[in-house]
Structures are given as structure tokens and as C-alpha cells.
């Protein structure tokens, strides 16, 4: 029980959360800008997916009262607020409501990033992502400067832990599925098939993957990376390598494949919440000293420390 308490109920370092917020917010903001030309066509009742909507959507309940395009402006403003950390919690909730509404308004154009954004925003509603590197923190710090030992201002860990576990579960769930669903993940042809696909590939030199050697190397690296991440990310010594490998895989996908860019970048953005704050702090100190709660934690109560019987301390990652 005490391990449970330590894992879920310790304060969480706000700096990785701030990096996560900045990355995710920027991504959502770009998504909104990209949706601008098609917003009405995608989400209005008379658009391309009108027959594939359900009622769990604010668009449905406000139809005829609030113009649909106003929600785009609200979403855009909220994504800017979220990124800058201005009224962060309110912006998070607004973005979550609009994201849910988008998904339920047209199931037929839902991409992976929509599901990822929705999941991340859902858990983010229960925490304050604006404790560091934000306008909220800046204003607060002006009123009452944050001291180095002030970890009482850190947010609770449990929503972030839920986010982390859910993120890990994506790999735990999807890897066996893909191995069962398609033999290409076993024989090493999966990356070749992605690279030569007219729908997904934007890689201009598919010839590099002919013969299958490069495809096998990348396919098996992907399987190893996705298979080991759910375990290695919890241990101090392996965490950063595991994160680096997964980030490389997702960035590679973003470069080589089209139409999944936002999804794969949203996965990269989420990796911030696994990076210990103590690793980020030296970089951040160079950028700004205001609005960043400095660490009071020396120990990280992850599973590895729990095994060693480490005492409860604020979570430094």
C-alpha cells in the first residue's frame, strides 16, 4: 500500500510537465491551423461525416445556437493559452471538450493523434500543467517567489502516472496486436511495406529498402524498442536510452511517413513526462530562472527505488 501511495500520491516535478505542455500545446495549435480550411466540411452536420456522428459532442448540443466555426476559434485560443500556460487548467478542459466533440462529430476522419490528444487532455484535466514555464507560474512567482524547497507547489503525481501508464499500455497492447495481425512484423518486411505504400510514404528513395535488409533492421529495432520501452522506462539506468530509442523511431516515422505526422509527434511530446526533472533543470536554468520550481527531491520513487525501500520523497520526474 505504501508503494502505491508513493507512486501515485507524491508530488510530481512540474518541469517535465511544462515541457510536455509546451510540446503538446504547440502540436495542438498547429493541428487547429491545419484544420482551418476543412473545419466545417469535417465537423458540420452537413459535412462529409454527418451520418457518422453521435450526440456526445458540444457541437451537437449547440447546433443552431453557436456557429461551428466559433469552436475553431475557441480551440485555437485555448491551444495558445495552453501552450503559454495562461489559465492552463481552463484551457485544458476546453481543449478536451472540443477534442471529444471533434471525435464524436465525425468518426470517419479520426486519426491516431485525435485519440492520443483526447487521452492526454483527459488526464491533464486533473492536474495543473502550468506550474512551470508558464504565464500562470510567472504571475504567481511575481506575487510570491518560489523557493528551492517549495515542492509543496508541485502537482500531485497520480494524473501524470495515469498518463504514463496509459501511454505505456499503448505499446503493451499494440505490439502483440501487430505481431498477430501481420506476419510482416515477424519477417521484417513491415517497414518496406510502409515505405513503398502510396498512401503512407513520403520517403523519396524507396530503392534503399529494396532487398529488405534495411527494412529488417528497422522493423526489428521498432519491435525491440516498443517491446522493451514499457519495462525499461521505469528504471533510472535504462530510462533515457529507452526514451531516446522510442523518440528516434517516432521522429523517423514523422520524417518518412505522411498523414501520421501529428500522431507520431504527439507520442514524442508525451515522452517528456518520463524524463526526470533533474536532467532538464540544468538546461532550463540557462533559459529562465523564473517560474520554475526547483527540485527538493533527491530520490526518485520509481519501482526500482521502491524495491530498495527508498523513503517517500517528491517525485523528481
Amino acid at each position: 500500500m505504501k508503494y502505491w501511495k508513493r507512486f501515485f500520491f507524491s508530488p510530481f516535478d512540474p518541469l517535465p510537465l511544462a515541457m510536455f505542455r509546451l510540446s503538446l500545446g504547440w502540436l495542438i495549435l498547429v493541428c487547429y491551423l491545419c484544420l482551418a480550411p476543412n473545419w466545417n466540411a469535417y465537423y458540420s452536420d452537413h459535412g462529409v461525416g454527418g451520418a457518422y456522428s453521435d450526440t456526445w459532442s458540444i457541437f451537437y448540443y449547440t447546433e443552431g445556437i453557436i456557429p461551428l466555426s466559433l469552436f475553431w476559434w475557441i480551440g485555437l485560443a485555448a491551444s495558445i493559452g495552453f501552450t503559454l500556460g495562461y489559465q492552463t487548467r481552463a484551457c485544458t478542459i476546453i481543449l478536451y471538450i472540443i477534442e471529444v466533440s471533434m471525435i464524436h462529430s465525425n468518426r470517419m476522419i479520426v486519426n491516431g493523434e485525435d485519440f492520443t490528444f483526447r487521452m492526454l487532455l483527459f488526464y491533464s484535466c486533473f492536474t495543473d500543467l502550468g506550474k512551470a514555464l508558464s504565464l500562470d507560474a510567472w504571475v504567481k512567482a511575481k506575487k510570491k517567489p518560489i523557493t528551492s524547497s517549495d515542492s509543496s507547489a508541485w502537482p500531485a503525481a497520480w494524473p501524470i502516472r495515469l498518463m504514463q501508464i496509459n501511454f505505456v499500455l499503448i505499446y503493451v497492447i499494440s505490439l502483440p496486436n501487430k505481431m498477430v495481425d501481420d506476419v510482416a512484423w515477424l519477417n521484417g518486411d513491415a517497414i518496406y511495406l510502409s515505405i513503398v505504400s502510396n498512401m503512407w510514404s513520403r520517403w523519396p528513395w524507396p530503392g534503399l529498402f529494396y532487398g529488405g535488409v534495411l527494412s529488417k533492421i528497422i522493423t526489428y529495432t521498432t519491435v525491440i524498442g516498443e517491446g522493451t520501452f514499457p519495462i525499461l522506462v521505469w528504471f533510472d539506468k535504462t530510462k533515457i536510452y529507452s526514451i531516446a530509442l522510442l523518440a528516434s523511431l517516432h521522429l523517423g516515422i514523422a520524417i518518412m511517413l505522411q498523414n501520421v505526422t501529428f500522431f507520431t509527434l504527439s507520442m514524442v511530446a508525451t515522452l517528456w513526462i518520463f524524463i526526470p526533472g533533474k536532467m532538464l533543470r540544468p538546461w532550463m536554468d540557462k533559459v529562465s530562472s523564473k517560474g520554475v520550481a526547483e527540485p527538493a527531491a533527491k530520490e526518485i520513487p520509481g519501482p526500482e527505488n521502491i524495491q530498495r525501500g527508498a523513503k517517500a520523497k517528491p517525485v523528481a520526474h
Partner: protein
Amino acid sequence: MQQIIQQIKCEGIKDSLIYGFPHQRTQPATAKRNDLDKNGAFGSNAHPMFWAKIKPAVISAFIVLNLGTVLFMNRPGPVVQVTDDFLDKLSPLAAYRFSYAGWLIAEYAHKSGLDNRWQMFGRQSRFNWWFLIKAKTDAGTIDLPLPLQSPRTFWQRTFFDYKEAKFHLNLYANQPLREAYAAYLCRQYSLPGHPPIRSIIFELHYQNLLSPADAAKYGRHTELESYTQVWDEFPSSP
């Protein structure tokens, strides 16, 4: 003073039980805030104390609910099969109760947004395919200027068309969606001064992919032959 404190404490707990959350209550005039705080934070603080006690349990239950929901929604096929077999062996009432519990979890997943089945690049296509969507008018048949079948700039292709592939993937597998999309296209492209659209045609083009070994051998990754099929022709609704 102790009596007042005790009374407020009891009321605080009662409020929390009744309202389910800390309820603001006017303090008796005789109870000074500072006295109360010194004696263990009663009055307006009594509810937070109660809440502080039950908060970990409530949050723990919420954690279990959410993680359980994600796992439930992503049960592998064999687990679903075992569950169904188990339900078949139960009495109708017990089976109903289990099914109802499952429905409640699914409903929570639907409402909260935890209902996604996570699959990343699970199935890879063995052929390249694309739709050519045409409009039949009195003046002839024209290819509609849609994102995936008309010249696009780099910016349009990269930033604005990023949902089109998924949409076409859904069109491929869903005939009613194609019909609904045809109706939308008829509305969208029936412009004054242009010949009226009589029907929308979905033409599927596909080309088989070569294996990596054959691709190396022939220096290309598709077969030379490309195939075309007219999948649907949806008449314009009056």
C-alpha cells in the same frame, strides 16, 4: 468551546456525506476562526479534513477505474472469447449482471474518451490503391477536384490534407459512408451555371506490391499492371 467544536465537526462530516463534497457552512458567531484552527481545523476546515481522509481512497478508485477501463476496452480476442464462453455458462440473471457491468464500463470509456483500441500500423497493405471519384453530368464525366486526386502544393499535401488518407481508408471499407460522401459531393459541386450532377462514381485503382527481393531484382516495387474497378455509382438525390 469544545462542544461547539464537536458540533461543527459532526455537521461537517454529515455535510460531506450528504453533499458528497465539502459544503460551506456559516460558523456560529461564538466560534472564532483562530480558536478552531488551533484545535484541529473545524468549521469550514472540517470538510477538508474529512475530504483529506477519503481523498486517497477516492483517487485510488478512480485510478483503478481508468486503467481497468483501458484494459477492458483493449481485451485481446481470445480473452473476449473466454469471457463470452464464461457468460454462456452462467444463469441468465448472472450473465445479465456481468454484461451490464461490461456495458457500464464501455459507456464510461465512451464518455471519457478511453474507448480507443490501440493499434499502431498493425496491418500493412500488399497493394497500392486509390480512389478516383468522378461526377457524371449531362455534359460528360469529370474527375472531381478533390485533395487526393488533384494537383496539390507541398503545404496543402503536408498540412491540410493529413486526414484525407484515413478518410479514404474508411471509404474503402464502408459502402454506406461512400454513399453519404457521394451525397455530400453532389451538394458541394452542384453549382449554378454548371451542368447538374447526375451521379457520383467511385472508381478503385490498385497495383500489387512486389516483395523486397523482387523489388531489388526488378528495380521497382509495384507490378506493371494496374487494375481498375468501378465500385459504386450513386445517383444524385433530387
